[in-house]
């Protein structure tokens, strides 16, 4: 049963992946990607990591929806209605990815994978949680900081208007003159 499920999900994932770059419509590409990633989430759940699988699905859904928003915001032809090709160097990319795939596949098939060592604990989520909060605390902290940095960095980059636009040249204005109003402390 799991093998069948694996096969289905695998095929779905790969087709979803291929569809991403075949669709003219950006929305379709995004949701094809979403489908592919949900299948990957399913695979993960299948491999006995329910929490990570569901979290992946949860995160991917929200991410893909946000991507869709950006896709529509920035792409010239989001709905794919106008015939245009936003591609370059297809043959080179194809050859390289082909070669990479061949290499990886060869590696996977030829590598003498060792047997399993130890058995999975009853509650894998607990195992992950204990590890993250225990031995791998450093990783957790690093990821935490990375995320914080990303949030701050992304905000700074994305926001068009700086402090001085809002609070005046010498930051003396009491109330920031944001176009949309709102904001705490008014």
């Amino acid at each position, binding site marked *: 049963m799991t093998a069948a499920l694996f096969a289905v999900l695998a095929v779905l994932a790969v087709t979803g992946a291929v569809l991403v770059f075949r669709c003219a*419509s950006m*929305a*379709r590409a995004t*949701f094809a990607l*979403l489908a592919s990633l949900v299948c990957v989430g399913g695979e993960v759940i299948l491999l006995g990591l*329910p*929490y990570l699988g*569901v*979290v992946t*699905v*949860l995160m991917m*859904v*929200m991410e*893909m*929806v*946000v991507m*869709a*928003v950006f896709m*529509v915001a920035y792409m010239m032809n989001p*709905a794919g*209605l106008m015939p245009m090709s936003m591609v370059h160097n297809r043959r080179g990319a194809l050859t390289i990815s082909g070669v990479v795939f061949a290499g990886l596949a060869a590696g996977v098939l030829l590598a003498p994978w060792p047997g399993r060592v130890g058995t999975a604990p009853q*509650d894998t*989520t607990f195992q992950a949680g204990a590890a993250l909060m225990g031995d791998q605390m450093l990783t957790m902290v690093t990821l935490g900081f990375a995320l914080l940095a990303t949030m701050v960095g992304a905000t700074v980059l994305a926001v068009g208007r700086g402090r001085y636009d809002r609070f005046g040249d010498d930051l003396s204005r009491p109330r920031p003159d944001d176009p*949309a109003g*709102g*904001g*705490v402390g008014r």
Partner: protein
Amino acid sequence: MADAGSWPSVLVAPAALLALAVLALCSDAVLDARTAGRPATPAAAVRPLLDVVRLLLAQPRRTPASDALLWRIGVLTAPTAAVLAVAVVPFGGHVVADLEVGVVWFNAMEALTWAGLWLAGWGPNAALPLIGGYRFLAQGLAYELPLMFALIAAAVGAESLNVGDIAAAQQGLWFAVWMPVAFAVYLASVLAFSFLGPFGYPAGRDIAGGVLGETSGVDRLLLQAGRWLLLAAGSAMAVPLFLGGGAGPLLPGWAWSLLKTLAVLGLLLWARRRVPAVRADRYVEFAWMVLIPATIVQTLVPALVVLRR
């Protein structure tokens, strides 16, 4: 601990959910009639159901260059999300899928409504539905994080992500009692992801019905159904999380669950009427600046309690 769902329960749960949704719809219609001054007759209660037939028979309208596939997927997502979300809810001891990560599953399924609503908005290739879709995203950003922290608070209180365990953990004291903020935020979020009442912003009349604007026929029906199903699912989930699940002095587990669910539904419908519509950007500001810190502190309380135990 609720026993694992056997095969037949897979059918019973959706049926029960549908029943609840219809019940909610009728009571809502009754309330509408009463407020409109009409007599609260069974006929008034049944009026919304007539729409179902109307919609089934109506000729679906088509917009030019609409993305039919995505549109249909969007519309289907809403009800399926509700049904899948209810799968983990224990109904007085019986649960469809007793997942270890029930809470996260519920959250994931609830997140699917984002995709569904956006696709519904994008499908017709029309401005107003698209704006409705965007409105739902904005609203989603607002309610999502407080909801997550509320769920986490419950999970932390029960030291497990399994909904059954959470219900069992409330033997002594219901979570709603010593996690009021979490409970309130949860209820608001249920309203939010079913875009009803104060959170009906994505389907607001100022943008001609928003996501529901261009839908017609079966699509519209499915959307409307999804909406009420989500409401019912949310209420159902509230019971094991904050109201102690099937526990109760006299009646059997499932009875208590039913009663509590109806109570929550009533509360929500009442709330839908009382609270005025809230614009998404205002709610986002309130949610991020006030609710998130509150829920974080709320989550801290059970964490400390658990640590000290």
